């Protein structure tokens, strides 16, 4: 079991993560942050992702699109370690992380927001935000980071409200805030604007771009809404039937007849 080494990793989480984020914010290096190599995931006889080679550079903002059943969520869950890969490898910052537990990947700087908003409903907003922050900050610094995260999520004044009572949009903001409070290098968002209205979508888009530009966090965003995708990302990866189908600038992808075909005919 890997539990003994984990302790030290968790302890060193804060400084590590912040250092890298700071480096990224100042430096211009663009190196590959995440790389998957022949990634396969099978459930019983069903192949959800098939031989996926996919990479994200440091500080990049990448959107992942594709018709239903294309394997987008599966790919994200493979990157976070929620699912174990059937075959293939995942490299992060040049290290093979394929066999690491989810929490170990988090301590290396990968953070995730789930498809369904999964804040802790019974806990207050403050308690929710403390949970990621308490790992690397104490006392006055913790108080400051918690307050900042709540403010960035636009939830000032809601500190003592149970998270379950927030609106859907507020929960999405809170969850992004919690994931970002870990100060990751790579943040994975699974349909962050599903079910939100236009104003809420714009707020989320702005938030993502700010985190990307100001803190140098790289993103992988799954989203169906191509307008939203176009508003935040330049590079897009299209998954289809568990495989990488196209990769390129959003304008090119949008006008690609093959992509249009799989979307229209994509009643899988």
């Amino acid at each position, binding site marked *: 079991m890997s539990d003994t080494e984990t302790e030290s990793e968790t302890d060193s989480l804060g400084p590590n993560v912040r250092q890298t984020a700071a480096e990224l914010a100042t430096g211009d290096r663009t190196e590959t942050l995440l790389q998957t190599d022949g990634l396969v995931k099978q459930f*019983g006889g*069903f192949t*959800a992702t098939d031989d996926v080679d996919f990479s994200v550079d440091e500080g990049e903002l990448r959107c992942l699109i594709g018709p*239903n*059943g294309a394997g987008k969520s599966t790919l994200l869950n493979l990157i976070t370690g929620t699912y174990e890969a059937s075959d293939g490898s995942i490299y992060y910052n040049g290290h093979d992380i394929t066999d690491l537990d989810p929490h170990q990947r988090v301590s290396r700087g990968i953070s995730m927001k789930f498809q369904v908003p999964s804040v802790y409903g019974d806990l207050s907003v403050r308690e929710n935000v403390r949970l990621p922050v308490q790992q690397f900050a104490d006392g006055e610094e913790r108080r400051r980071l918690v307050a900042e995260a709540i403010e960035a999520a636009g939830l000032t004044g809601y500190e003592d409200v149970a998270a379950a009572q927030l609106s859907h949009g507020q929960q999405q903001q809170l969850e992004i805030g919690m994931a970002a409070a870990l100060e990751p290098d790579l943040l994975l968002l699974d349909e962050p604007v599903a079910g939100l209205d236009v104003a809420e979508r714009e707020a989320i888009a702005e938030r993502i771009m700010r985190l990307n530009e100001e803190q140098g966090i790289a993103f992988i965003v799954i989203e169906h809404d191509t307008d939203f995708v176009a508003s935040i990302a330049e590079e897009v990866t299209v998954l289809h039937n568990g495989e990488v189908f196209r990769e390129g600038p959003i304008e090119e992808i949008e006008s690609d007849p093959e992509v249009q075909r799989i979307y229209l005919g994509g009643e899988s």
Partner: protein
Amino acid sequence: MVNGINLALQFLDSFAFIVLAAAGLAIIFGIMGVINLAHGEFILIGAYTTTLAATQLGLPLVVAMVVGGVVTGVFGIITERVIISGAWPNWVSQRTLGRDVIEPLYDRLADSMVATFGLSLILTQGARIRFGNSIDQISTPFGAISYGSFSYSTYRIVLAGVSIGLLVATYYLFTRTDFGMRARATIQDKETAQAMGVNTDRMYMLTFGIGSALAGLTGALFAPVISMQPTLGDQFLVEAFVAVVVGGPSVVLGTALSGGVLGAILAVFSNLYGTFIGRIALLVAALIALRFLPEGITGFIEQVQKRRQESE
């Protein structure tokens, strides 16, 4: 050779016991996400009803057994309406307090365990108060078959046949009938099933009724061979739970598979080292199975289904 036959019979016996013990529990757990800790007491109701119907009313055994199953089924439906769904208390409270007092126990595993445990206490003690520490038993029909130095109750072989028949019937019910289709739709995705016009409320009520009737039938079938006391349900509980969790959420297939695997283990170890070791071996096997298949044999299959749904 003789020991081979003995082992085979012992396997059939164990298989029948496990499958019959588990069937009702498995259906209720698989479809409703409710763990019925009063399962043993439902078996008790079936056994007592059958015995009393035969001894007091003088009904023929087969008829008495059917009565046992039906009475338990009806009791199950009442339990579902009053406790599990809270529909009847809520009907009353809606008219008196203007609000629901009970939130249904569907998919609230821990709460359903606690609530049905309360019910089990009431039923066991109620049976003790009403009928005393034991009631007269009906005699085992059919006599025995002998071979060599062994003698074996024919009735127990009949039970094995019945258990297989029950599995087939349940399988048919859940795969070939309209009810089964709705049931499976409800397991897969409750909301979608509702959207497709399945009355999930009624579905749950019927499911609980069928599961209870099966438990009652188990009690009825075992009534001639076990001693009639208020705690008789306890002896089924362990095998039932073990079979359900080892089998996983896929009701019929899971029960059949775990009945086969665990029945074989129970039979072999009992045959070689006695019943105590057999029982311990069964439990240890269950622990090991859960350790390596945390969600049972068929839990993995369900994961696949869930995964498919998510990506669709």
